[in-house]
């Protein structure tokens, strides 16, 4: 049966990963980093939501497994953020195929499995790390005087840097607004103060 999500995932894969179009995304640094890669991860994520069983949060093992899965996705995305590998994906079709496969299977898919299994503290941790990584990359691309990628021009690098800082700002606001101004009414005080909980 074809669900709405699987159609979207297939569509994303078609747009992002199939050659003539894939090369078009890769021809520009901004399109490559901020459009193609997110689309691939999102496609994997959508596919993942189709196959991942719903979490049983009572089980501690599930939580640790969730952390492992999100960590895997983080490593995978980080790897492809290294300018050298971005370049390599442009220069070699084989590397590019590996990039596409790993981003779908080792980043998107595990994210779909892991994210629902994370507790609020772990989610906050991932969120905060994502903000500082976006700032790090943004400042790097914005201020680096030379070319980081052989396949791309310096002015694109600066655009990417600004976009990255924008993403950091967006992630910050998107996290801060509900946290500061969220409209839930809270719950009564704990009956036994000083007691432990598992977040």
């Amino acid at each position: 049966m074809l669900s709405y999500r699987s159609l979207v995932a297939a569509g994303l894969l078609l747009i992002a990963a199939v050659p003539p179009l894939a090369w078009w995304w890769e021809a520009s640094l901004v399109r490559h980093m901020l459009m193609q890669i997110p689309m691939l991860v999102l496609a994997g994520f959508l596919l993942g939501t189709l196959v991942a069983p719903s979490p049983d949060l009572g089980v501690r093992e599930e939580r640790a497994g969730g952390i492992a899965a999100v960590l895997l996705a983080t490593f995978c995305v980080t790897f492809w953020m290294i300018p050298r590998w971005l370049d390599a994906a442009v220069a070699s079709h084989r590397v590019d195929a590996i990039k596409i496969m790993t981003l779908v299977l080792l980043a998107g898919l595990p994210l779909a499995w892991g994210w629902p299994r994370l507790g609020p503290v772990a989610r906050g941790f991932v969120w905060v790390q994502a903000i500082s990584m976006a700032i790090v990359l943004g400042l790097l691309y914005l201020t680096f005087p030379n070319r980081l990628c052989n396949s791309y021009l310096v002015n694109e690098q600066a655009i990417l840097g600004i976009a990255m800082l924008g993403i950091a700002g967006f992630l910050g606001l998107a996290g801060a607004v509900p946290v500061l101004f969220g409209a839930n009414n809270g719950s009564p005080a704990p009956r036994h103060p000083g007691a432990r909980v598992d977040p």
Partner: protein
Amino acid sequence: MVAENPRVFTIDEAGRRIVAANLVVAGAVLLAMMLLGLTMRLGQSGWLEVPPARFYQIMTVHGTGMIGIAALGGITVMWYFLSQYVRLSTHILTANLLLFLIGVVIILTADFIGGFAAGWTILFPLPTHGAVWPAEAAFWHLLGLMLVGAGLLLVALDFGRALIARYGSLGRSHGWPQLFGLSNDPLPPPTVIAGTMVTIVTTLTVIGGASIMVPMMINALNPAFTINPLLAKNVIYFFGHSLANVTIYMAVVVIYELLPLFAGRPYKASRIFVAGWTGSTIMVLIIFPHHLFMDFAMPQWASGMAQVLSFTNSFPAMLVTGFGALALVHRSGIQWSLVSGLLFLSLFGWLAGIVPAVIDATIVVNSVMHNTLWVPGHFHFYMLLGVIPMILAFMLYLTRDRLGRSPEKDSDMWALIVYLGAGLGFVLVFLYSGRHSVPRRWAVHWPEWMVYDRFASVFAALVILAAAFFIVRFLIGLRHFLSGR
């Protein structure tokens, strides 16, 4: 609703154990770092042979370690009292301690064996281009700092989770609906308001710290990967000032919670109180993006203002705390004890420490005195006489003075007087030397400065004796606390 200030604090066994472990580590590291501080002063006074390279390693370990235990002790104080209002996790507090310890081991190795000595402020490009130490040492020192920061972040996120679960949002636990007249509900307790501020500021601090330390770590391994030094300086200032300030925001709740026990009245939050803390929160929120996304074409005055703001963001919170505490004890027939004495000492340290800070932050003076001993004078004032007494008061309260009624011995009062007198003497020597333009961070001093250094050494030794006395008292009483009497 629980009472404004519970008279009896409860904590389960797992919580007791991890709180005790945190405090034991904090107390031990505090003494060790104080001894390192004394070593520096002895070296400058010519009483002890400290080679320059060693001096800077010691200074780096001392500064980093002190800020580290101020944060560890402070977050433990905050955790203990906040857990009376919201449900916190002992696992997370344990994870923090583990990360702290691993970080400390890495930092000690990087500094004393690796030779890293760029100071606690890690001002770029010195750490990675110091040439005196291998770049790997800088890498490991920074990694150690990152681990300590990750631990603090976890606890802050747990605070945030618990506050949101209980109050609905951080805005509400900060008392904003009441502040802006949108709600007539009773205000959250002072500890909850301060806890909210700590959650926000710690998170921002760690984001700032990671944003500059990750590039510096890469730069250490690969010099071709450059960093804009002006930008680095801004972010490091933000990180350093915020981290140093947040330790006092954490520890200060000991005053809100314990002073009422001695005064017999509750410490109630008021709208002014909320406004004061909100003022501090907002100042941090403003300087955060300012330092981080620093505009390169920024006019000079804007950069100067951010600098001053990051010095002064604690003032609103400090003023409302000071006035609140004075109102609380005014004609209350307060009971004097070691703990209440330490609480007052800490209030004095925080309030009086403002004077040198304001003078330093005034830009004109800043350019004259900023690289003198005036600067360590100002931050030792509120650290040694503000944050540390708060943490000591908490330790002693837990282990021997829980109801504020245990009989005081003469020795207790003497220790208190020595700590105050010698502590004050120690920071005043820093300030006085600063007035006379003695530079900071000099391993070897000219003979005419050595008089100051010798006075400072004597004062430092006395402070250490008093602190050791308190910590031994704490250790002796630990069994009682752990047994949960």
